[in-house]
């Protein structure tokens, strides 16, 4: 089957990408998941200047998930442009470059710097960052702040490069944030970033993370991520979505496509299994073929179809070991009714 998909103007050979912050800029993953074989590499969020990040400890394992408080450690856009994108371009890989900033101007400047970068197929705008100009409120939590960032980035980005706004699930109404971003010019949306969480150490009796709170990721949050994709796709069916949140298998990836994503990012799963992106792609492709889908496009949002509307595709084997319902049932013979005795122990 044809695995090609797209995120707005960005054509991708297949729908499995890495997630920002979970693959660096692809180099360290190359031995396990060759970067050119992926839909694209979504690079670690880059900022204008180098960032050292937060104090350690920066992570805590949680049930089927993890918390991180990396604090956007990255070498800054100059080093990124000098070392990372050329390496990806050399290998024929596609880069979705994630950008982060503390002000609208930061984002705009980053977009301008990246405008004609090699390997770039899309910009992902990480708006889960504190707005230094507004009491540190996170851009993604305010439709207005989010839309300002998106508009500024869109204005600096060439037409052929789609701008994806990456939304936070920590909001009352993700659809309204999504809509604001699209109205401001976002060509697509990435759903979702991490959930805010924390862990307290039962031995030290203090928060486990150096940064106190951190971002919760991994399979634990998958149901929240699928719900966000579902809600946004239902409200904005024409907007391409890059789905992320706890994807570990091909079946997980399929869930996101069915909910309305056109492609998916594999994040935390990479830490447990560095070959996860290529494995997920292989598993997904087998599942799609098994269901008789001919292209990724057919699958996107398929779970939204009205009840009763079924595929003609060959159904998978029934999981139930018992006999199938009978076609015909013997007619009554008119014997007298007879009652069982009551419970008597």
């Amino acid at each position, binding site marked *: 089957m044809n695995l090609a998909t797209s995120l707005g103007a960005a054509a991708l050979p297949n729908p499995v990408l890495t997630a920002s912050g979970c693959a660096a800029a692809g180099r360290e993953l190359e031995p396990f998941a060759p970067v050119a074989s992926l839909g694209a590499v979504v690079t670690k969020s880059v900022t204008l200047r180098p960032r050292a990040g937060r104090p350690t400890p920066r992570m805590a394992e949680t049930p089927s998930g993890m918390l991180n408080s990396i604090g956007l450690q990255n070498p800054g856009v100059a080093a990124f442009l000098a070392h990372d994108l050329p390496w990806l371009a050399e290998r024929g890989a596609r880069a979705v470059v994630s950008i982060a900033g503390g002000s609208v101007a930061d984002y705009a400047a980053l977009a301008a710097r990246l405008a004609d970068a090699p390997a770039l197929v899309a910009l992902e705008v990480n708006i889960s960052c504190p707005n230094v100009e507004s009491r540190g409120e996170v851009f993604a939590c305010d439709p207005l702040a989010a839309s300002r960032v998106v508009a500024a980035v869109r204005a600096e980005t060439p037409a052929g490069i789609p701008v994806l706004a990456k939304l936070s699930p920590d909001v009352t109404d993700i659809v309204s944030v999504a809509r604001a971003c699209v109205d401001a010019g976002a060509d697509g949306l990435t759903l979702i970033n991490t959930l805010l969480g924390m862990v307290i150490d039962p031995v030290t009796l203090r928060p486990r993370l150096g940064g106190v709170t951190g971002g919760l990721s991994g399979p634990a949050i998958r149901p929240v991520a699928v719900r966000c994709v579902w809600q946004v796709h239902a409200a904005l069916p024409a907007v391409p979505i890059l789905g992320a949140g706890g994807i570990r298998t091909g079946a997980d990836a399929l869930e996101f496509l069915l909910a309305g994503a056109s492609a998916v990012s594999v994040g935390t799963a990479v830490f447990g299994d560095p070959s996860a992106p290529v494995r997920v792609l292989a598993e997904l492709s087998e599942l799609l073929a098994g269901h008789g889908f001919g292209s990724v496009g057919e699958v996107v949002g398929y779970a939204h179809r009205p009840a009763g509307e079924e595929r003609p595709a060959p159904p998978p084997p029934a999981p139930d070991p018992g*006999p199938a319902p009978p076609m015909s049932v013997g007619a009554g013979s008119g014997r007298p009714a007879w009652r069982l005795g009551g419970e008597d122990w």
Partner: protein
Amino acid sequence: MIRATPVQVRGEVLARRRVGAYHLIEIAAGGIAERSRPGQFVALSVGGPLSSMLLRRSFALYRATPVGAYSGTVQIVVGVHGRGTEWLAAVRPGDSLDVVGPLGTPFRLPSAPTPCLLVGGGYGSAPLFSLADALRARECRAEFLLGAGTHERIFGELEAKRTAGAVTVTTDDGSYGRRGTVADALPDEIERTGAQAVYACGPMPMLRAVGAVAASYGLPCQVAVEESMACGIGVCMTCVLPVVGEDGVTRMSRSCVEGPVFDHERVRWDDVGTVPADTLGAAL
């Protein structure tokens, strides 16, 4: 109905062996066997304490032996369905298993000698053997009709033969025994055995069809249903289906405590998976 309160015990796997498509698991679990009655079930933790699977898995009691070398053992028949049953299919003797039971309603027995037909689909036959023993102890004849999709999914044919003489078996494709479903074979079996009551356990569509045949003969029929369960003890309201009460009112009844055994005629089969508009408390 007064039922023994369930207990939670740390059991030990004594044996696991393949039987056709299934795994027969024997567990030393004191306190459960002596309280249990045919038709009841146990709920097992799966995956160990660090598992990502939080919920228990339910299994009908195939055999419950209150005494013996161990302080009480239970046997279950496990068909691999998803991740939890896959894990169970790999337990080894000596492994420990957290067991809660006995749970649910048992089959009710006729108060006078009555010939009974016991109809099992797939692993659904598991609880029927101890039921047959209990029926015989009351001088009720118990005969078996067993069906499944394929031969290896018939459970307990030999045992049924040993205790009941002739046993009719069906497979969907006719590769073994009679071709078709147990419901297809049921009219002949009712005629042949002169059954005055039917008990059935198996997948929901089978229960529905078997009960319809029994009803058409005017025979009472008890079925042990299988609904997805989160708690198994009656606290979560996951496992409900629309059941008509003695008062004629439909309620969403918990199959883990008000069932799994129901009178066939009380279950609103057409409406399983929905909340019928005339259910007590249905949204308008």
